[in-house]
């Protein structure tokens, strides 16, 4: 059983023809020596255009694993993932790379900025290989970093560093934006979700959004 938080800001209805992302029976098993770790077990999921979905679960419940598979960063042990009518599970490395370049945006749990590039350059690194990107300056302004364009990551505060990956992800105008605990690397006590302004604004642009965050009280569980 999977529980999905329903996106409230979604303007589109779930009845629209065909899901953007459709997962069927997703299973991911990690072989750790003699023990098998089932990170995912028969996950079924559909994400529709304009939807904003929040995925909640305790640490180690498989949220990151699921996002990685949906984003084409990893392949499931079994099960299928469709992006529209493209089967991602049979795609090879090269096709997955292209799929990510053309359709996916990520905000990772860790900022993963290139320390030797300024905020603008970190964003430009992504827009350079995108087809219809936003101007890096604009996307940085969207997340409130208009004054920090030429700062290196080491010259940014922790909160500012947190927002650069968001600008980076939205600047390429991806079809799907996947955010893995974008609010903070570790969930604050109480587990309330806190979305940066930029993210909530950016995800209104007719983009499907998958978002996951963990709650200590275990608001969901896999079976």
């Amino acid at each position, binding site marked *: 059983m999977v529980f999905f938080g329903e996106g409230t800001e979604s303007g589109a209805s779930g009845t629209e023809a065909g899901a953007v992302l459709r997962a069927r029976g997703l299973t991911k098993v990690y072989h750790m020596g003699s023990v098998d770790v089932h990170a995912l077990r028969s996950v079924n999921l559909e994400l529709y255009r304009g939807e904003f979905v929040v995925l909640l679960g305790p640490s180690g419940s498989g949220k990151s694993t699921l996002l990685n598979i949906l984003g084409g960063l990893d392949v499931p042990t079994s099960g299928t993932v469709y992006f529209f009518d493209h089967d991602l599970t049979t795609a090879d*490395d090269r096709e997955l*790379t292209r799929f990510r370049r053309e359709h996916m945006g990520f905000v990772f749990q860790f900022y993963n900025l290139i320390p030797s590039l300024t905020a603008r350059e970190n964003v430009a690194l992504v827009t350079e290989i995108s087809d219809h990107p936003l101007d890096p300056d604009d996307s940085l302004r969207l997340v409130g970093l208009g004054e920090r364009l030429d700062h290196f990551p080491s010259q940014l505060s922790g909160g500012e560093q947190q927002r650069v990956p968001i600008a980076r992800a939205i600047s390429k105008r991806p079809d799907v934006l996947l955010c893995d605990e974008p609010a903070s690397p570790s969930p604050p006590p109480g587990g309330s979700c806190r979305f940066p302004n930029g993210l909530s604004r950016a995800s209104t642009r007719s983009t499907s959004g998958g978002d996951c965050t963990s709650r200590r009280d275990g608001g969901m569980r896999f079976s």
Partner: protein
Amino acid sequence: MSEAFAQANGLDPGDTLGAVINGRWQRLRIVGIALSPEYVYEIRGTDLFPDNKRFGVLWMSRDALGAAFDMEGAFNDVSLSLAPGAPDAMEAEVIARLDRLLEPYGGLSAYGRREQISHRFLSDEIAQNRVFGIVLPSIFLGVAAFLIHIVLSRLVGTQREQIAVLKAFGYGNLAIGGHYVRFAVVAVLAGAAVGTGIGLWWGRVVGELYAQFYRFPVRRFDAGPGAVLLAVLVSAGAAVLGALGAARRASALPPAEAMQPEPPASFRPGLIERLGLTRFFSLTSRIIVRDLERRPYKALVSTMGIALAVVILVVGHYFEDAVRHIAEVQFRNVQRDDVTIVFNDPRPARAVYEVAYLPGVLRSEPFRTVPARLRHEHRTRRIALFGLAPEGELRRLVGQDLRTIEVPSDGMVLTTRLAEILGVAPGDRLTVEVLEGKRPVRAVTVAGLVDELVGLSAYMDVRALNRLMSEGGTVSGSFLLVDPPVAPHLYSVLKRLPAVGGVSFRKAALAGFEETLATGRLSRIELHEGDPVGRGMVLARLTPVPIDARTLAQDRARLDAAQAEKRAADARVERARAALEQAQREHQRADELSSRGLKSPQEREQTELVEATYAKELEAAVFAAQAAAFQVDAARAALLAAGSVTQGADAAPGGPARSTFITVQSPIRGRVLRVLQESERVVTTALPSWSSAILPCSRSSWTSSPPMR
């Protein structure tokens, strides 16, 4: 005159020098300085190192030299060039025919270019450089590739999350891998720029050095763009090879996995656990052992890299030590003479005793050399057959353990290498074809082997060699042991002896007298070429090398001994003179008596003979007395150097105050023609390097004057 010799002796066209030609002392004028392909490396056949000061080549017109020898139109050396592209076998054929052609005229057998000394030294050097040019860069490039591999692997390790992000956003594997290869390429480009600069500069320096050492006529260092390009490409190849592993790792990194921090490295129980030795290792030692076990390949390569670095060190030191060891064995155990003299032609054995009377000679041991071809079955080798004095001290045969091997009274001793070449063992008989005189061909037994480190030699007892040659006691030259202070004087005497064709002074002997005779350290000469000097003007200052008490005592003892010897020699002169006068009177009386018919002509002749004998004796005694007088002078000079030097304050402004110095003053008014020794160094008396250089037209008078203090 050959350039190296001219430079070492400060000679220029227009200068004159004396030379013994066909037994006559002649003055020669230098008309030009030249180089010859036969003496690119100017070295005497028997030497280990070139001695440009004492060995040089003079070229004269064949007519003039022929006339000096009363042998117009004759020749004793001929060089041939083979037709271009002639096969190797042709050389052997030409040599064989040439030998047959020249044998009736006393030909010493021809040899190919490979055996030509200068050529061999030079081509050996070039071959060695080629090896070094390949081996050293290979090692360096290998280490560089390994370093690049390590550095980039680490970089990939620390940047795995960044790699993951780039991949997540759609950067391909190739782009990521290429990114890390470009790191290496940047390093190569920077290294290539710096390396090319240093390489060109260093190449020029080394080229210059070689041109100077070998006297190449052209001093140009050429490194075309091709060479630079090749070097850069080879370096880039090595760097990319080193980077490839890291680049592959980066491109193979699964993005999802890279997102997480690197999982702890996997460890398994290893050797020490299986052997049950765990408890003998401290925890920190276990870390080391297990780390090494986990990446055995990496540990191996690291070890190899360090091993190669050690190899470079060891090999470098090995070569240094080997050369030193060879020189030490050669000069301490084998060639123990200070001076080797070679007569123009073989001489009767008593020549050795005449040599023994020369000033400063402490001991003289004769030797006989005969050019010969040794033959065993189909193998032959042309060598100089050495006849050594039995129980000789100055030239010894030394086994591998450095123990002396006595020259057997019969048979021949070969160096091990020569025996290998000829395929003989002790007890075998080989054929000796002498290439001199009546050219006897004899069978000789191999009596033993010696392990000499240099050269190929065959030795016999000098008497056995004389027998083989069917000649009476005959010698080719002599090994001399020399009293160091007298060595320079002996050298000038030997140079003028008509019978002596070649003199080779051991560097050590010279260094020895440099040490004992050194008057001091020559301060930097401030005069420049062309400066006018007045009479009495100070030209140079010498700070005496401090002489210790032991040297002083030795000098004193030497003076005492020399004085005693001189008194004995003087007494002998007196006795000889008295005996001669007595003989002259006898002779006179015999003349008178025989003219009056009172004495038979035989009796008169007898007194004449006696008189002649005593005259000879007096001559020898006078010579000995002169030598003794010189020894006294030399000993006194050495003592004077220690004691009575000019006292004075150091005039050097601001310099550390030195207590005493010796000044060298100009004896005449003139102009400085050349400053041969400008910078500071220890100089000795009679070294023309500083004394002769300064004054015009006084070179000969200064160098031949007695030691000046």
